[in-house]
């Protein structure tokens, strides 16, 4: 059991830190969705030029092919340096790209993967529908074969950056006679295709980060089907075997930084009764609890990564840390609002947007698997309780 890095790992950390310090954009990521995407593409290009594109991708596909510990170091230094949010490149780098690496054919890999690494194209995800959220396998957007094309009709929702993405990983029902997840196909959808309409959805924080996407007789070449017709469910799940938990480290460090900012705030601010928060035992107690839980989250992250090093592919127990992180994030940001009191009633222009972060924290127990579903997965697949 160990927390130390070897000399080679320390040297790698120095290399990462040096490059990041010299190359992180000085200006913050713009709030405007389209300007934000332009920013994302430029930052991805810069990482590509520096040799840091696709850090977890195999080198044969243009990635850096970092080991698990090196990935951990990259994500830690990235978060510590305050490097930009991955933004609209999350799906391309962590989902769509890896899916193609695992299940795409050579033509698909050769065409799509380099354009992600260079920052030329970003991706969005077309999975959830208004009628199919937690019950994704019930999805109804259809793809009917006509000649050498699929004709797609239906609707997707919660498509993050759908309004500013070049490609979409789209999950369709291609065989309505097969039940639920058996008749689904995973296809690459060009977001500029005729028949696609995108309506951005304003989220609780006022941002236009995700969208509804409508498909009206959209034609997609059959050559865009990945992994074969009606294999979509297994293709969609294949990225689970790619992820080693290293990206969690970045989130954990950001949360730790937020909690330490709250400790600073408590030291600086007074409550509405004029008493410094630093003298408030209840607030100190809550902050102490958060520090302890954030520490535990880091330890759990290292344990997940340790399992990856043993060669274990993440299983249902990954729901444990996801659930812990989601609940902790909400609890932490609630405290920041309690510290600020009426000062949190106005959204600040340039400083740290505490109310915005508090509202944004609600998504962590909803997106990517609700807390309720995660508890079901833990109960059933980790603990063996009956369905």
């Amino acid at each position, binding site marked *: *059991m*160990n*927390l*130390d*890095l*070897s000399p080679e*790992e320390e040297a790698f950390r120095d290399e990462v830190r040096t490059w990041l310090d010299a190359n992180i954009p000085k200006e913050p990521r713009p709030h405007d969705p389209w300007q934000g995407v332009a920013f994302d593409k430029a930052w991805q290009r810069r990482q590509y030029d520096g040799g840091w594109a696709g850090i977890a991708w195999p080198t044969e596909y243009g990635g850096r092919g970092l080991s698990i*510990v090196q990935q*951990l170091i990259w994500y830690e230094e990235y978060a*510590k340096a305050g490097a930009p949010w991955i933004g609209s490149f999350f799906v391309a780098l962590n989902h769509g790209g890896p899916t193609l690496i695992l299940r795409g054919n050579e033509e698909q890999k050769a065409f799509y993967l380099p354009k992600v690494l260079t920052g030329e194209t970003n991706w969005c995800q077309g999975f959830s529908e208004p009628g199919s959220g937690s019950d994704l396998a019930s999805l109804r957007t259809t793809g009917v074969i006509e000649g050498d094309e699929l004709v797609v009709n239906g609707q997707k929702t919660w498509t993050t950056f759908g309004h500013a993405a070049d490609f979409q990983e789209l999950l369709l029902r291609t065989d309505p006679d097969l039940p639920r997840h058996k008749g689904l196909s995973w296809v690459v959808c060009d977001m500029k295709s005729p028949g696609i309409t995108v309506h951005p959805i304003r989220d609780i924080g006022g941002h236009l980060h995700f969208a509804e996407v409508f498909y009206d007789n959209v034609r997609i070449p059959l050559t865009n089907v990945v992994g074969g017709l009606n294999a979509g469910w297994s293709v969609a799940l294949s990225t689970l075997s790619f992820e080693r938990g290293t990206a969690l480290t970045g989130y954990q*460090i950001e949360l*730790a*930084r937020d909690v*330490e900012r709250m*400790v600073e705030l408590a030291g600086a601010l007074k409550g509405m009764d004029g008493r410094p928060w630093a003298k408030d035992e209840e607030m*100190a*107690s809550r*902050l*102490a*609890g958060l*520090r*302890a*839980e*954030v*520490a*535990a*989250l*880091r*330890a*759990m992250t*290292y*344990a997940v*990564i*340790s*399992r990856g*090093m*043993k060669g274990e592919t993440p299983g249902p*127990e990954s729901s*444990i*840390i996801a*659930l*812990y992180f989601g609940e902790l994030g909400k609890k932490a940001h609630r405290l920041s609002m309690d510290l600020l009191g009426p000062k949190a009633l106005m959204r600040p222009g340039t400083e740290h947007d505490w109310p915005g972060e508090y509202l944004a924290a609600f998504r962590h127990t909803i997106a990517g698997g609700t807390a*309720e579903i*995660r*508890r*079901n997965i*833990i*109960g*059933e697949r*980790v*603990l*063996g*309780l*009956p*369905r």
Partner: protein
Amino acid sequence: MTYLLPTPDQEELLAAVSEFLDHEAPIERLRPGDAERRRKTEQDLLAQITNLGWHALGLPESAGGSDLSITDEMLFFHEAGRRLVSPVLLATVIGAHAALQAGDADLASAITLGTHRCAFAVETTPGARAWDSAVVLLDAGPDDLVVVWRPDGVALFKPHQIIERREGDGVDETLVMSTGWISGDPAVWAASNGAGLSLRTSVLVTALLSGLAGAVKDMTVEYAKVRHQFGVAIGTFQAVKHPCADMAVRCEAALHQNTFAAICVRDGRADAAFQTAAAKLVATDAAMTNASQSIQLHGGMGYTDECDAGRFLKRALVLRELAGGDRFQRLALMSEAGPL
């Protein structure tokens, strides 16, 4: 390389420990019955463990130990915690470490060999500085050395130094609990300079709590699979399934933070005190909340003396007072520098 899981050697040891404890320390041994017989059974168990040398894993060979480290001790005490093994076992380990640190190698060996038994006393006098506080003794025999934890070190008292002893009605009936008063300065004082014995004690108490939380989770899950109502196992219902999931989450947090803290203490890292406080707080929450929830999920049975859930809760109440309660840990977390 960052690695937080047991090594193959450690896994082998754990398998042996687990098999032994499953056989020799089933939870049934603590059920209500003849208190005298229970006392004797526990003493026999402790003698067996002492013979196997597992209590001396982290002690140097010169003192009769295996020359391993606190991470091995932590793994062992997690298993011991699962079976509610008496805190006397940990008191023995800490007593031996204290004697060694204070330069009394003979005493350390005697404790390791079992010639001198040790038991914990928890101070109940608030803000105690001088050595004159009231204490609660845990499974202390009349001839046992008494181990008292303080933030700045560990004290050993000779049995006669604990006066006005009265055996009482402790909240945990599986332990012989008595009250008394400390009288006089410690026979042995092992001061903690930095990451010392105080932190080691805390890490290992945390391991007992972490193991307890895990055992109670497993027991509750098993119950949820066999107890049927409305035609199905109650674990089918989300109102039962989800609290079980939350128990599992608390166990993961407790186990891995305990490991992190153990490594920090072992390696003398600057954040050892911070991580140790975090670990005890998280493990205490896991033990107390899991045990409380377990009572709830056992329904009417959970409210009986027959059900083991109550035993886990009561032991958690005792263990959380060892090596500083929640308030102490929170103060430590706020007075130490933050983690970044």
